[in-house]
């Protein structure tokens, strides 16, 4: 099986991608949305052409609500970001944007989140990431409780976790790059995407490891074939189904990216990346790693 034969190439590809993702996370930094840090986000659409930013700036400055960021959206609209606003400030800002009713700004979306709500959500997000990770590790330990030879079960588990990290880090790296160039923000949906990737990707790895387990049990009796061949043939048997199942999920996710609501676009895109790399990692990363480890623990001739 060529995957096992050229394992070092595939492992290097994964390593490079993970490294690039980590570098971009540090280089670009996360663009945290108002969900977590608090603040206000307003979306308005103008009946006629939207006024230039410079024309609106003086009226907004008079309100004394700190720095206000205007981003053009669509043909006739703006997205306005500022600190969290109370009802009065909200109405005054809307008036300032309308510029004396010459060209009325119609509000399509307004969201103001107080800092305490943001802090609360951050706490919730951290807690649930920890909980999901713990649950997944327990699940892995449970799923591999019966495997032993020639590789002990905790090694299967550890490799599954390595594959999991790989599957989360690369989409996060892609997200950071997207957020730097297209202004996607790290919001609640990002956290949900990370957690969903955790859930989806581990199952794929488990199905392939399941095959390896089953085949090595059969082969153990006559001890003819080495572990490398077992992994190779297991991959042969299961990679079609692996690709087929993730393809179905990726197909619906792509439908969401291209045709779905605006608000879940980046979410679906991140899940697509997670699904893709989840499948890639279980075929091209987890199984070769297993072989590599087995070769290392053998006494060298």
């Amino acid at each position, binding site marked *: 099986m060529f995957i096992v034969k050229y394992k070092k190439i595939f492992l290097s590809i994964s390593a490079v991608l993970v490294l690039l993702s980590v570098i971009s996370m540090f280089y670009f930094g996360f663009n945290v949305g108002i969900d977590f840090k608090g603040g206000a986000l307003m979306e308005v659409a103008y009946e006629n052409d939207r006024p230039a930013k410079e024309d609106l700036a003086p009226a907004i400055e008079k309100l004394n609500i700190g720095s206000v960021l205007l981003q053009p959206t669509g043909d006739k609209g703006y997205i306005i970001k500022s600190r969290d606003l109370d009802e009065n400030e909200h109405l005054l800002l809307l008036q300032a944007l309308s510029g004396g009713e010459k060209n009325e700004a119609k509000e399509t979306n307004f969201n103001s989140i107080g800092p305490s709500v943001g802090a609360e959500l951050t706490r919730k997000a951290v807690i649930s990431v920890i909980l999901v990770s713990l649950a997944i590790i327990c699940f892995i330990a449970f799923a591999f409780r019966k495997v032993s030879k020639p590789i002990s079960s905790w090694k299967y588990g550890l490799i599954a976790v390595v594959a999991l990290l790989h599957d989360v880090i690369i989409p996060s790296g892609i997200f950071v790059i997207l957020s730097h160039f297209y202004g996607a923000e790290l919001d609640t949906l990002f956290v949900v995407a990370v957690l969903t990737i955790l859930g989806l990707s581990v199952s794929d790895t488990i199905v392939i490891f399941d095959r390896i387990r089953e085949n090595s049990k059969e082969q153990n009796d006559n001890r003819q074939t080495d572990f490398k061949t077992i992994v190779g043939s297991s991959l042969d048997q299961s990679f079609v189904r692996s690709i087929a199942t993730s393809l*179905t999920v990726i197909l619906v996710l792509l439908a969401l990216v291209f045709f779905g609501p605006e608000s879940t676009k980046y979410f679906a895109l991140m899940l697509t990346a997670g699904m893709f790399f989840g499948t890639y990692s279980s075929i091209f990363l987890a199984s070769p790693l297993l072989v590599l480890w087995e070769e290392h623990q053998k006494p060298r001739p």
Partner: protein
Amino acid sequence: MTKKIILALTILVLSGAVALFVYKSEPKLNKNFDITGSFFKTHPFRLGLDLSGGTHLTYKADISLVPVGQVGDSMNALRDVIERRINIFGVSEPVVQVQHSGFVSGSDEQLIVDLPGVTDVKQAVDMIGKTPLLEFKIEAPKDAPRIVKVGKDGKIDLGSVDLGPQFTATELTGRYLQKATLEFDTNTREPKVSLQFDDTGTKLFAQITKSNIGKMVAIYLDGAPISTPVVREEIPNGQAVISGSFTPTEAKQLVGRLNSGALPVPISLLSTQTIGASLGDSATSAGVKAGIIGFAFIALFLILWYRLPGVVAVLSLSIFTIIVLALFKLIPVTLTTAGIAGFIISMGIAVDANVLIFERLKEELHAGRSIADAVSAGFTRAWSSIRDSNLSTIITATILFWFGTSLIKGFALTLGMGVLVSMFSAITISKVFLSLLSFMKENKFTRFMFSSGLSSGKVK
């Protein structure tokens, strides 16, 4: 064989009936929705604010003065009062929820208010937040010390001295009110608000009127006097009338607010979110479009790659979709953009089980089994993989659901429900139809039709 045919037909008829229910109970799809049966009428999809447009408000309740053991009760009382206030304004299907403090949710007791269709936040905040404070005050003794302001230069600010009668507070407040009603004066046609006190209030009012005959009793609303009638005689029956310069609308609002009572605990607004109706509409249609296109993609892939079993899988996916949609209506699940995404993803996962089965089926065919044997072996051997691969998704969905904010709850609920239903539909329904087909005459063509991908179904 006959048994299997009957079973298959039953499944088809039942899912047809469920599909009819889903279709009939949707107002947008039925022209004469108003005259359909009430069962259909009460089961449209329940759309979240991000799809229907509306306002989402989060309040913090200040419970610092409430004894520890009574926090739950006061929060429920608060919810009831707010619900009543919203109902006066005729908002359809408002949702008012209490979110208790805790390890995960943070230290604040919160009240979450969803107002579908209300996009004027100012109006919404006003209708919820205004606490009508009704007080009855009596004339202070003539020699009571007057409250005056002292100016910066140490002299008395003469402008602040109110030479009119002074009033002091009594125990009688809006708390003792039993009922307020709107009436119109028979002569002047002016609106007036008639008050009926409860037992304690009646006693207090009788006492106040008895000891103040010939004097004024002032009725204060929110700290301002709105009416200062002179007491002519003792009023023992606990009835009072406020007639001020109300417009009929103001009087009506006052009556509504007085009846809904005062807030048991003070609240402050933490965050607001408004979604315009047009944005919600476009999000809904985009979600529906993505769902249909996603379904079409999967169906195309399944039929091209898995041939006859693929057709069966598409059938079971359709039944899966119908069942889940009906559950959304019956439970009911509030659908949000994230919720629709969760459902669409669960469609992809639902196919996963069928793919696992069909791959096994192909292997069994290669190993030289007959079609019928291969079908039943394929189902048995794929089960452990299906269970394992869905379990981790269910675990994640469960934790996410517990995580709590409405956005995530919607996603976790639809995803989790989808995966659970798919374990039933992909296995049971696909099995019934596939084993029905597997009794076809065995030849090159049928073996090809039961195989998948690039393989021809020959024995290797």
